[in-house]
């Protein structure tokens, strides 16, 4: 088996060549108990403890191939890891294919983040593992330890694999200043003409019964000022081209930018990115545009 030499296979198939098995701590205690019972049996010349000591050894003999067989033939392959923020654990998809049921499967990254024990039936299973990225950029989650101890916990059978599919990680969100370059709107001015919306109301007009109670200005009615209907209007969305605040450290500025991008997307505004060197991400809206902008932040030089 190759240990993190940068040439990890895309599909890992576990077998004799890459599976390792050693007695667990409990397995050593088990052997100690067998030895103790053997001493008792010799000293008392009793058959009961002698047979029990031999049973413990026999169970250990059986557990060795059974534990190994639990993992043998298991196939792991990477899914398509979606990009995610650096501020929390990321979901890393894996696909497992089993020829036979596997009990007590545990998957753990090198940092200790683990999933399991899992009891899987034969067939194909999709799993999502969490891992903590070190920062923005294109990262691999590192070394994955695949282990089982079933059926009796006497042996630990394990293998290691570094899933090769990388995952984009964009900067974490942090409110703060960003550099803005307002873009001219379609009407040609920076003034924001109103459009129908529902964020807040800005005017009142006499209430008509067919309008129902939803838009009725209840506070005015309570003060005895008659029935009025609230008129809602949102400000016209602006179009801005964003860039990292030049006075800040780049990583901090990118974090502010990440926050601002997601804020603008939530508000439905149109935004673009000035990437430097005269390049830019054209203004736009929507999830795909946001993801493209965030990945641009992730790979910011």
């Amino acid at each position, binding site marked *: 088996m190759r240990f993190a030499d940068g040439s990890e296979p895309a599909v890992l198939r576990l077998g004799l060549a890459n599976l390792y098995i050693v007695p667990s701590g409990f397995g050593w205690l088990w052997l100690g108990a067998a030895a103790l*019972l053997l001493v008792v049996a010799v000293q008392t*010349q009793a058959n009961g403890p002698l047979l029990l*000591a031999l049973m413990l050894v*026999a169970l250990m003999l*059986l557990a060795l191939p059974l534990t190994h067989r639990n993992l043998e033939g298991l196939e792991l392959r990477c899914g398509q890891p979606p990009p995610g923020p650096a501020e929390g654990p990321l979901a890393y998809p894996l696909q497992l*294919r089993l020829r036979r049921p596997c009990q007590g499967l545990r998957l753990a990254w090198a940092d200790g983040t683990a999933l399991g024990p899992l009891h899987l*039936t034969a067939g194909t299973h999709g799993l999502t593992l969490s891992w903590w990225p070190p920062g923005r950029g294109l990262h691999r989650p590192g070394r994955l330890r695949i282990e089982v101890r079933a059926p009796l916990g006497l042996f630990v059978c394990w293998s290691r694999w570094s899933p090769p599919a990388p995952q984009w990680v964009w900067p974490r969100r942090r409110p703060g200043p960003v550099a803005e370059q307002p873009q001219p709107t379609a009407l040609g001015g920076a003034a924001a003409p109103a459009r129908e919306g529902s964020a807040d109301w800005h005017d009142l007009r006499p209430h008509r019964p067919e309008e129902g109670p939803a838009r009725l200005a209840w506070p005015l009615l309570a003060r005895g000022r008659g029935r009025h209907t609230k008129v809602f209007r949102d400000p016209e969305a602006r179009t801005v081209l964003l860039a990292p605040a030049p006075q800040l450290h780049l990583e901090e500025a990118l974090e502010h930018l990440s926050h601002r991008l997601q804020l603008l997307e939530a508000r439905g505004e149109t935004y673009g990115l000035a990437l430097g060197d005269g390049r830019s991400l054209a203004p736009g809206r929507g999830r795909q545009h946001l993801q493209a902008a965030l990945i641009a932040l992730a790979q910011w030089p």
Partner: protein
Amino acid sequence: MALTLPTRALAWCTEALLLVSLPGLDPSQPLSWALLALVLAAALKLLEARRPGERRLVALLQVIAIGLLATLRSDLAGSLLQLATLLGAITALVALDGPAAPAQRLLRRSLALLMAALPLALLPFVLLPRLEPFGQRRGPLAGGTARIGLSDSLEPGAIDRLANEDAPAARVVFAAAPPPATQRYWRVLVHEHFDGRRWRPGSAAAPLGVAAGRVSQLWLVEPAPLLEVPWDGQGAPAAAQPDLQTTARGELRSRRPPTQRRHYRLAEATAAGGAAWRRQPPTPLTLSLPRGGEPRLEALAATWARLPTPEQRLAAAEAWFRRQPFRYSLSPGALPQRGGLDTFLFERRVGFCGHYASAFTALMRAAGVPARVVSGYRGGSWVRSLGGSAYLDLRQSDAHAWSEVWLPRQGWVRVDPTQWIRADSPAPAAPALLTWWQRQWWGLDVAWTRWWLGFDRQEQEALLRRWLGERRTAVGWLLLALMGGLLPLLLALLRLGGRGEGGDPGRQLLARALAPLANLGLAPAPGETLAAFGQRATAARPDLAQPLAALVGSYDRLRFAPLSPARRRARWQRLRWAARRLRRAAAASDSPASGRR
């Protein structure tokens, strides 16, 4: 309804089984205290155990406790209880590493593991030569105390009332017919030293080597405070029992710890060696009697002493006992410190076997006839067990004392003066139903003990000699070869037995059928229905459309359509056929020759 027990509950069940086994253990045994400490430690650990590793430790403590228990209790009931406890501990371990499953399935899985391990354990159990105890003296062990049984001294005058203890003492299986009821005297201790009130064995008797013939009796003796064990005084220890020897006084002494259940085989003695102890001449101790302590006894004996032969003195004594109005009673009251035998013989005339044997032996000694008191058992109930061998059941209430006198032409002769007097105890009642069941169980217990305890170091030696003869040095290779051959076979059996435990068989078949599609980049997404996956796979690989449609249709009909058992079987066949067809089609599509990869 299937019961799903949490692993913690399983561990508590095992602990309860251990607790059930504890009552009745001998507190004088250090192992009993070690066992108690282990059971307590396991319970306390279980109370605070949260992680699987801690619960595994509890199971291991319980397994060690079972091992100690097996040392202390080897009877059939105890062994069955230990087996159930072991099954509980292994089930708790299996449940820790597996999915939540009904208790029945977990038990089945654990039982399969134990059954697979048993042949692997039995091979070295039978073949591996056993070690002798390290650092133990090969000789009589310090006598421990025990719950019941005879004691090494006899002082009938100090006993106000004899408890009629009905606890088991021993069981005997005979190769041939048992001796007639009048001949059932089972000697244990011979008391030669008398201080006027108490009888003791005297100095240690020399061992007596007697050649043994065919095995005729198997004895199973409950724990007792003596190294001496009961026997009929006729035969000899069977061959290959160095722990057992006869003495010149006619005792059978075992070197096994008296606090353990002991078992041994007796053989018919050869003609030359039969009852050699009977011909051992008397020691001066067998004539000694504190003079002046019992004046009326001595006066009576002096009249017999004038008779010329010991046989005549014995006959005179029997005639005298038969003439006197003696009565048998288990509650005769205590006798005075001085002149106790005089009070018994000439005033009260009420007592049990110890009084009669003691008084008669003292009279014989005073009359100049060497005599001694023997304690042991008399009688016993012959039990024909349905499930095991017929056996003679000896109880503590069968404990008895009699005398032996030295007649120069016959050697030591048994005389039972209690037989000369009238008994006032009621005849034993017919066995009640409970007693009948109890005796049947004991019969099974005898059969178990005969097989289980009988296979000791000597028996193993004899077996290996029979099987391998001079090639015994090859036993290691034989063991390795047998275990090497057995292990793959047992693993295959375990796999075969566990095939039905992977969950729903329909799901397993479906998973096996769809597995080859993964090579083509087609696998059901989490949450995707089979029908949706079929459509997606068909769109991606139109060449698999037909087998996929057949598989999806068969599976859906088997799963959701109301079917009679016959139709269900037919649907199963269809599903298997569809699965096979899809696997073949996927394999053909995946092959390089197809050019579609």
